[in-house]
C-alpha cells in the first residue's frame, strides 16, 4: 500500500543534505510551509540555495532560515520588503548571494523544470538590466530573452488537504507557487491541514496529483508563530 504520509516535519526532511536546492512555496506569508521550514532549521542543513518569491518576512519562515545562516544563495523576485531585515542584513554583509528574477519568469522557469522543457524564450525583461548577458532572439515582431529551467532537490509546499497518494488541494491564494514547485523537485514534501481518505478528494478538484509528491505531513499550525 502506498502511504506517503510521514509522522512529522522532522521525519519528512531528515535526508536534506548541505548544499541542497530547496524550492519554498508562498507569497508573502501566505502559503508558506512554516512547519517544514522550522524543521529544516532544526535539521541543520547549510549552504542551501533557496528558490522562493520572497526572501522572508519578519523573523519567521525563510527569514528565520536566513537568520540561522543556512542560506548561501536565494533566487527570488521580491526580496526587499518592509520586514525583510534578516535578508537585508545578510545581503549587505555579503553573506548571501541574490539572483533576482521577474516573478513570471521565476514561475515559468520552475514550471519548465517540472515539465522537462530545456529552455524557453520570454519577452519579459528584454532590454532591462535583468536580461544583461542573456541570450536574446527576435521571433516575429518581438524580442525575447532565453531562460533556463529551475529544479530543486526538495520542494516544500503548504497545501490544504492530502490523501495517502499525495494528491493535494490548496486554499485560496495560498495555492500560489505550490503546484509548480511540487513538479520541479526530486523530493516534494507537502505540509497539509488535513489528511483525508483516498478517494475523498474529487478527481476533478485535485490540483497537484500525487505523482508529484513524495511525502505528506499533517501540521496543526498553518500560519507563522
Amino acid at each position, binding site marked *: 500500500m502506498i502511504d506517503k504520509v510521514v509522522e512529522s516535519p522532522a521525519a519528512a526532511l531528515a535526508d536534506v543534505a548541505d548544499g541542497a536546492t530547496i524550492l519554498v512555496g508562498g*507569497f*508573502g*506569508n*501566505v*502559503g508558506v510551509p512554516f512547519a517544514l521550514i522550522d524543521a529544516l532549521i532544526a535539521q541543520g542543513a547549510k549552504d542551501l540555495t533557496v528558490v522562493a*518569491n520572497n526572501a522572508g518576512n519578519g523573523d519567521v519562515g525563510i527569514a528565520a532560515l536566513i537568520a540561522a545562516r543556512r542560506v548561501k544563495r536565494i533566487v527570488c*523576485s*521580491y*526580496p*526587499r*520588503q518592509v520586514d*525583510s531585515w534578516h*535578508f*537585508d542584513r545578510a*545581503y*549587505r554583509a555579503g553573506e548571501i548571494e*541574490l539572483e*533576482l*528574477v*521577474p*516573478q*513570471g*519568469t521565476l*514561475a*515559468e522557469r*520552475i*514550471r519548465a523544470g517540472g515539465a522537462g522543457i530545456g529552455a524557453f524564450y*520570454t*519577452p*519579459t*525583461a*528584454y*532590454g*532591462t*538590466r*535583468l536580461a544583461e548577458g542573456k541570450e536574446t532572439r527576435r521571433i516575429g515582431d518581438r524580442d525575447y530573452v532565453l531562460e533556463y529551467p529551475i529544479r530543486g532537490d526538495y520542494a516544500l509546499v503548504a497545501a490544504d488537504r492530502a490523501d495517502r497518494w499525495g494528491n493535494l488541494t*490548496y*486554499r*485560496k*491564494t*495560498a*495555492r*500560489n*507557487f*505550490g*503546484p*509548480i514547485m511540487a513538479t520541479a523537485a526530486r523530493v516534494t514534501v507537502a505540509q497539509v491541514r488535513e489528511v483525508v481518505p483516498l478517494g475523498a478528494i474529487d478527481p476533478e478538484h485535485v*490540483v497537484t496529483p500525487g505523482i508529484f509528491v513524495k511525502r505528506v505531513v499533517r501540521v496543526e499550525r*498553518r*500560519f507563522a508563530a
Partner: protein
Amino acid sequence: MKPLDRDRIAARVARDIPEGAYVNLGIGLPTRVANYLPKDREVILHSENGVLGLGPRPAQGAEDPDLIDAGKNPVTLVPGGAFFHHADSFAMIRGGHIDICVLGAFQVSEAGDIANWHTGEPDAIPAVGGAMDLVSGAKQVFVMMEHVTKKGEPKIVRRCTYPLTGLRCVSRIYTDLAVIDVRPDGLHVVEIVAEGLSFAQLQQLTAAPLRPPASA
C-alpha cells in the same frame, strides 16, 4: 494651478476602464483605482498571486489569512472569481490576456519606456516582483504618477535615466496634471486635468515634447 490629488487621479483612471475589462492594479497607489470603478460596471480585477475577481477589502476581523492581493493586503473575492497557480497567473499576463494594467513609475519616456522597479542607487537592494511581466504582457499599460518628483524634476522624459522595467510598453500616462497618450509619433496630451494649467506650462514641466490636446 490646481493639480489633482491622488484619489482624483485614481478616479480619472477608473473612468477609462470599460465594462468587462480584465485589469491588474499594481501595488501601492494604483490599487486605489478600484475604489472609483462605478458599482454598476463589471470590471474583473486580477492579482498576480493567483486570483481573478478581487473584491473590496474585508471588514476588520473578517480577513481570511489565505486571501491576499499582490500587495499582501487582505482582500475578498467576488462571485465569479477564480484561484489558480503562479504559472497560470503569469500565463495570463505574458500571454496578453490582461486588458489593462495600472502601475506607478519613476519615469516614462516619450517612446513609452518605463522605469519603476529600481532607483539605480548602487547600495539599494533590488526587488522586481511582477512589474516586468506586467509591462511586457498587458494589452495596455496605464501609468499613474505625479507629473514631477518632489524636487520638481519631470518624470516624463526623452530617455529614462533609471533602470528600465520595459521598453515601448506604456499606452497612457495619468498624472496630477494631465492625461497623455504614448503613440508611435510621440506624446499626445489627451486632457489637462489640473485646473488653470496651460499647455505651455504643462510642457515646461515635461522633459519630452508634447502635442496639444485635439480641442486645444
